């Protein structure tokens, strides 16, 4: 991943910054330039809550190349409190114990090592709450 592509996502990946529409209150993550609900164009920067629940999940056994050393790993659609949804790995637990409805919280973790130099890319992963 080229550094500019990684760098510009840092506010979202490190601090989970989202955009709250000044018109209708819809929270977009990642932030957008136009509100998908009311088409408003003014936003307030907010941080997403770190608590949420699993809506659905899978355990990846056949990965894309960048994740070939990590299988099997669990990944889920998580609805954070307040309603914003993310796709995130669920770690620090046996994947077989994950359930729909389970409470989780996000933590700051290493996500990928990229390129020959092994540049470390960080972001959020979920752990059981």
């Amino acid at each position, binding site marked *: 991943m080229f550094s500019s592509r990684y760098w510009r996502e840092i506010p979202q990946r490190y601090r989970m910054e989202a955009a709250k529409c000044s018109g209708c209150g819809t929270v977009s993550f990642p932030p957008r330039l136009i509100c998908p609900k009311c088409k408003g164009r003014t936003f307030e920067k907010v941080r997403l809550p770190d608590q949420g629940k699993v809506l659905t999940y*899978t355990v990846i056994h*056949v990965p894309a190349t960048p994740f070939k050393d990590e299988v099997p790993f669990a990944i889920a659609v998580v609805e954070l409190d307040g309603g914003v949804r*993310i796709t*995130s*790995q669920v770690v620090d637990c046996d994947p077989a114990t994950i359930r729909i409805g389970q409470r989780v919280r996000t933590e700051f973790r290493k996500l990928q090592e990229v390129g020959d130099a092994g540049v470390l890319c960080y972001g959020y992963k979920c752990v059981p709450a």
Partner: protein
Amino acid sequence: MREVAIVGVGMTRWGELWEKSLRDIYVETALLAMEDAGVDRIDSMVVGCMSSGLFVGQEHLGSVLADYLGQAPVPATRVESACASGGLAIRTGFMEVASGMSDIVLVSGVEKMTDVDGGDATYALGTAADQEYECYHGITFPGLYAMMARAYMHQYGLTREELAAVAVKNHENGSKNPLAQFPMQVTIEQVIGSVLVADPLRILDCSPITDGAAAIILCPLDQAKKISKNRPVKIIGSGHATDSIAYHSREDLTSLEAVAKAAERAYKMAGVGPDAIDAVEVHDCFTIAEILAIEALGLVERGKGRTAASSGLTAIGGKIPVNPSGGLKSKGHPVGATGVAQVIELVKQLRGECGERQVKNARRALAQNMGGSGGSSIVHILEVG
């Protein structure tokens, strides 16, 4: 708008075609379609291809393929909507003929997927999802559909056996299709016992990695008799819709709204509803996708798709035959070519050329092609001319 007919089809057997290049498989099928239609010239060509850039390192496909087909300087347009690129190519060609811009249009789909290894193919397919907020975290395409399957199991009580029945049916149909990549029949036990790809989906729930192409010839209906000796098949409905690119942003995680919307538009244009359809090809990239697609198309009620295969409803002799070709599951899934091959199967069904897998008295048929995890879908409705 002019009425549009399909007067020629061309397809070769799909598979791991290591001895052939992308341009070879394209030209072979394009020539077959032209021969089938009985035309020796075209006014324009449209090519659907998802990712020749990542799979073979070649872009600018319109020119490459017009050149190698010996048709330069005709206008050539490449279109892309991930795995729905073939369906979008048909829609683009349909609009070109309907508008009066061109009379004879060659529409193709092509994908050459086995020049890269499995991990890189998985990566390339992942570009149809949200790269930054889905794939970046390690999700794969089977993984996205596995999450749909898990959510649907939770909501509607879908069993592992009911899911496997979709693969069993489609391989049964594909065993009667000489062009299918994997014509072998499979049992429920084999599907359930096959290796895990993304829990709960196993390898026999997944469509394969395939090299392949498919081509059709479109022309105005009122010129069809003059242009070709084949009985024309009319395109009476075309619908196209999009949805959020990230699966997690969809309000209902068990529903494919782009499919429902595209179908609604196609039914409206055709002036018919789901009851009027005799044969259906849907985008069964994974077993769960067929269940969600037939629900979104209105062929069965929400939550009832789960038993459609196991009860025989969607078998060739059933009330709503789905994927008589064997579907993506058995026929293969060269992503950009799939949407065109679906329509070829239905043209052959409507012409009554399908032999052992023929749906009796088929007069009207529907094809549903899907991009990504449902970020786009294209639906076409065909009728005997």
